[in-house]
Each structure stands twice: as structure tokens, then as C-alpha cells.
């Protein structure tokens, strides 16, 4: 390892990134930054409850912000870092026990969230691909199918939510995010070395509350607009205030 790095310091950084603990710290850091992204994303989404014009105005402003491509690249980098390192860690963990147990019960410390990190992670990944393809790149070509709403992202989103399978997949996926974070937030804190007899129990509860809020917040939209306040595809305007 010494041979192929320029200086002692670059060696140390390389060692850190390749070490089990360093990898975990990077996964956790990317994960927490992604949580920050989720909060801003959710705040924007909730504008849908305010009304079509408010949401469309926000979307317009975002799309025309010259810094958006920079932010998108940063986000992509965070996702790639998180996904590549966590998958490598998961594979290494499988390899660390080549022969498994016939009976493996444990002592009840694991949680449903902690058991399913890899599964919920992959579910989120699948969702992100579908989500970006349909909402950003209009794969499936729903844009403008809600009568008279050519340019409205609001109408576009409502069009997708009107499909109960799409709405259901959306709810399932953000449920996956909730599960992922129910373990992820407190786990990331522990990985950063934050553990205090007095504050840790409270931080764990806060992490869980954050996971629930993220789930309820994101799921509220497909549930409301997909099942209670449905847009009528290619027929009539969806909800009051839905047009520009």
C-alpha cells in the first residue's frame, strides 16, 4: 500500500477510505447528507397541498436556477458514494461468515429496520430510477395528458398518482425509506462516534421520529392525490387551482 501513494498523508487518506471504519463513516456521512436532501425535497413536495400554481411556481424557479445542475451532480455523487460503499460493505460482511449457522437466533437486539437495510436500500434505488424516469424525463409520456395542462408539473404528477399501482409503489418505496432511516439515523450517529449515556436514548427516539415524519410526509401526496382527490386522465382538470 505504501508503494502506490504520493505522500504519507495521501496514504493515510487512502487507508481510511479502504478501512472498514472509514467506509462506514463515509456511508453514514453520505446518508445523513441525503437526509438533508429529503427534507428540502419534502418541503417542496408539500407545496402540492397549497395548490397547483404554488407548486408549479416552485418547480419553475428550481428548473431555472443556474445552480441546479451543480446541485444535481452533488446529489448524484452522494448517492453513488453511499450505494457503492454500502454494497461493498454488505458483500464483505457476507464473506466474513462463509459458513452460516443452522440455528441463528441472537438476543433480540436487531430491529426490523436494521435487518432490512440492504433490501430497503435496493428498493429505494429501484424507486429512484422509476421516479426520475417518470417525473423528470417523462418516460411513459404522461406529460400534457391531463386536459389543458401542457406545461404543468403539478398536472403531470397528478396524472401519475391517478394510476393506483404507481401510487402504491410510491407509498411502498417511501415506506422503505422510513424503515431505512429507522435504523440509519441512529446508526450513523453511532458510526460518527456519538454515544452518550444521557443523550443517546433521546437521539434514538429523534431518529425514529424523523423516519416516521419522512414516511408520512412523502406518502401523504400519493395517498391524497391518488385515492382521495384523483385527477381524471385526458378528460378534465384535476383539482381546484390545478391549472396555471
Amino acid at each position: 500500500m505504501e508503494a502506490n501513494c504520493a505522500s504519507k498523508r495521501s496514504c493515510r487518506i487512502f487507508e481510511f477510505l479502504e478501512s472498514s471504519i472509514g467506509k462506514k463513516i463515509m456511508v453514514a456521512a453520505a446518508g445523513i447528507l441525503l437526509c438533508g436532501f429529503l427534507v428540502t425535497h419534502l418541503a417542496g413536495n408539500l407545496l402540492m397541498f397549497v395548490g397547483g400554481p404554488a407548486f408549479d411556481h416552485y418547480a419553475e424557479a428550481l428548473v431555472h436556477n443556474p445552480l441546479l445542475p451543480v446541485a444535481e451532480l452533488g446529489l448524484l455523487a452522494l448517492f453513488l458514494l453511499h450505494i457503492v460503499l454500502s454494497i461493498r460493505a454488505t458483500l464483505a460482511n457476507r464473506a466474513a461468515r462463509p459458513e452460516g449457522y443452522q440455528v441463528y437466533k441472537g438476543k433480540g437486539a436487531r430491529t426490523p429496520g436494521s435487518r432490512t437495510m440492504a433490501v430497503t436500500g435496493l428498493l429505494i434505488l429501484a424507486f429512484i430510477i422509476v421516479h426520475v424516469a417518470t417525473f423528470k424525463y417523462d418516460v411513459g409520456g404522461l406529460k400534457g395528458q391531463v386536459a389543458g395542462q401542457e406545461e404543468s408539473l403539478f398536472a403531470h404528477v397528478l396524472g401519475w398518482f391517478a394510476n393506483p399501482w404507481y401510487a402504491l409503489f410510491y407509498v411502498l418505496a417511501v415506506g422503505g425509506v422510513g424503515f431505512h432511516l429507522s435504523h440509519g439515523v441512529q446508526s450513523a450517529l453511532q458510526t460518527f462516534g456519538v454515544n452518550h449515556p444521557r443523550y443517546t436514548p433521546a437521539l434514538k427516539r429523534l431518529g425514529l421520529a424523523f423516519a416516521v415524519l419522512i414516511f408520512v410526509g412523502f406518502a401523504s401526496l400519493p395517498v391524497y392525490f391518488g385515492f382521495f382527490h384523483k385527477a381524471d386522465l385526458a378528460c378534465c382538470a384535476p383539482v381546484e387551482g390545478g391549472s396555471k
Partner: protein
Amino acid sequence: MNITLKVWRQKNAAAPGALVEYTVSGVVPEMSFLEMLDTLNEQLIAKGEDPLAFDSDCREGICGMCNLMIDGQAHGPDKEATTCQLHMRRYKDGDVVTVEPFRAKGFPLVKDLVVDRSAFDRIQAAGGFVSTHTGGAGEANAILIPHDMAEKAMDAASCIGCGACVAACPNASAMLFVAAKVSQYALLPQGQPEREKRVLAMREAMDKEGFGHCTNEYECEAACPKGIKLSNIARLNREFLRATLLTE
């Protein structure tokens, strides 16, 4: 009482292994789990069969040799107890108990229930010491140590290196063991001169042995017979981050 055991039998690392069923007769509640296995071996030897290989030494919970996975739990069902401290009063006549070796790439199997835990010795040798000539016993109060620090260091130092944390961890991670060994020095003045060097070396040795990454599942803490706390792993993470940043 009679106990039915399903135990892992395997001649050596290369040979295939399998669970084999035996019924042990004449088990009494006062026996320890290991004495029950001794009884099985007496009965196997009387029948001319190969006795079961398993490790033990002190049989009083201080050496860390008696490492068994009992019904899927490292050291069995009791809290903060080693296998040798588990007693048959926990079981009743006719119970079926599955006994397996600790499983991890870092703990290669030797025979039956015996695994080789020298990976822990190599990790310890990489940095789990202080390099000072201590001379004769010093004056006890020459180095002042706050009581709570002494307690925390002592708690960490009570790790007996049994490997239950690795066995119980879904990722076969050795973080709790390494965290205990790093903490016991990081908390005391005597450990300071080699503080950074130690954690970097022990982390490297740990990864080299093929143990997994910690994902904070807390199963190690639940399985540890000495009650080593997960907060030690948080300290290990801090120490590692600190050493990475501070070392020249």
C-alpha cells in the same frame, strides 16, 4: 433428565461437517453445560465412539475459552454469562438443544466445536499494549486518574477475548473486542503516548483477519458475557477518526 443434542461434528477444517443427534442420559440440574458435554463424551467413549471436541479452561467465566453457539445464541440463553456458567437447570427433561461452533472467516474451524481464535491474539499484538519499562511497583497515587475514567477503563478491560461478539454479529464483525482493547488504553494516561499508533495498527490488523463491518446491530453487546458496552465502539470510531486526522 435426558437431553437431546444436535451437535456439529466435523473431523477437520477440510472434511464436511453436519449436525449429529445424541441423547445424553443422567443429566442433573446442578451440572454446567460443559459438564453435560463431559457426560456425553463419557457415554461416547464407553460406546467406543470418537468424543466430541470442545474448548474450555477455567470453567469459571474468566478465560474466554468455552465458546459455543447454543440454540443460535452465543454462550447460550443467559445474560452476561459464559458457556461454562450456563447450568442445566435452565433445561428440562426431553429438551432438544442445538450446539454449533462460533462461525466467522476470522475463526477457522479446527475440529467439531473448536475454532482457532488466534486472530484476536494477532490484533492484540499489533497494538494492544503500552511500551514502557515499568520497573518496580510505583507509588499508587503518582499518576492521578479520575474515578469514572478508571471505572470505564476497567469495564473495557474486563473483555476476556472470548469472541462471542463476533459469533453473535450478523456481519461477523470484531468491533466490540477491538473497541474494548483500544478503550482500555485510550482512557488511561499510560495509553496516551501510543494512542494514535495503537488504534491505526489494531484497525488494520482487524480488517486483515477478514472480520466484517459494524452496522450497529447491537447483537454483540447483547451476547457479551462481560457486558462490554457499544459505547466502546463509538469510542473506537472516534479514536480512529482522530488518529487518521492527527497522525503525520
